[in-house]
């Protein structure tokens, strides 16, 4: 059965696009300011946002942009929705922040609210908590966005009915460099059943690469 990308977003170069259409461009000067401004722009009310590191803020915002105003994943049982993400830098920003906090034995105060963010899968947790997603969840680390890995692995998850819906993509954030490309994957049968098949994108490495690079399918 065919798998489709039914919804996708990108956040890059201070521009937000949803399903290929730029819907917001920010004038914010820094990454911190950008994330703060997007939080306000999308009218998000989530007190824990301010405690997140930038990687998790990016993941959280990306999922919010992707899913706000739609019930696309709510149609599925929570344990049947997966989150499969990739990035290159893992949690390096906060790794270095934590390392810095223990550099001087005379000022030795490691912080749990920093340390908790020194593993990359917390970005999955933040999305899962917000959207109540309880299924298969994995973070892969690769130098660049690897659509083949997502294609092979997510297809296998669907084939064996481990997931009925999956959020997947690339969430990378280190220093000033950030990039996110997050999308919803659903099966043909479910799309027909719920909404009628529209111009969705067939899930394969080439199509993922095209959407990621902003090329037409």
């Amino acid at each position, binding site marked *: 059965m065919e798998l489709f990308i039914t919804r996708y977003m990108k956040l890059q170069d201070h521009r937000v696009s949803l399903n290929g259409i730029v819907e917001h461009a920010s004038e914010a000067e820094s990454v911190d300011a950008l994330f703060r401004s997007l939080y306000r722009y999308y009218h998000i009310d989530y007190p824990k946002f301010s405690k997140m590191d930038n990687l998790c803020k990016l993941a959280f915002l990306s999922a919010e942009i992707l899913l706000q105003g739609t019930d696309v994943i709510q149609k599925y049982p929570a344990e049947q929705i997966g989150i499969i993400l990739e990035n290159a830098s893992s949690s390096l920003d906060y790794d270095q922040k934590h390392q810095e906090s223990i550099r001087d034995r005379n000022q030795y105060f490691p912080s749990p*609210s920093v340390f908790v963010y020194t593993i990359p899968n917390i970005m999955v947790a933040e999305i899962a908590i917000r959207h109540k997603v309880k299924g298969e969840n994995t973070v892969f680390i690769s130098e660049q966005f690897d659509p083949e890995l997502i294609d092979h692995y997510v297809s296998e998850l669907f084939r064996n009915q481990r997931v009925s819906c999956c959020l997947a993509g690339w969430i990378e954030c280190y220093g000033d460099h950030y990039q996110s490309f997050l999308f919803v994957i659903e099966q043909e049968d479910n799309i027909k059943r719920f909404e009628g098949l529209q111009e969705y994108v067939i899930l394969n490495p080439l199509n993922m690469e095209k959407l990621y690079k902003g090329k037409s399918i």
Partner: protein
Amino acid sequence: MIEDLILKLKKEIVEELNVENITPEEVDTDAPIFGEEGLGLDSIDALELVVLLDKNYGIKIQASKEGRKIFRSVRTIAEYILEHQKK
């Protein structure tokens, strides 16, 4: 004396624990700070308070054993600090 400490603590809690949507002056001195009715602090915040007490006041505590009582409200924290402060 305790009032100064209470205000200082409120500033530290709001700033160092990244508490949103509230100024230090608005924090209720005697209200529970944990749980949804309080400042929405959670288990990681409790551990951060332990670090705060160590870093700013030189006091070491075990979050799991003593934390619940000490961290009940800003006032209880201030009272504990005044009792135990080394630096």
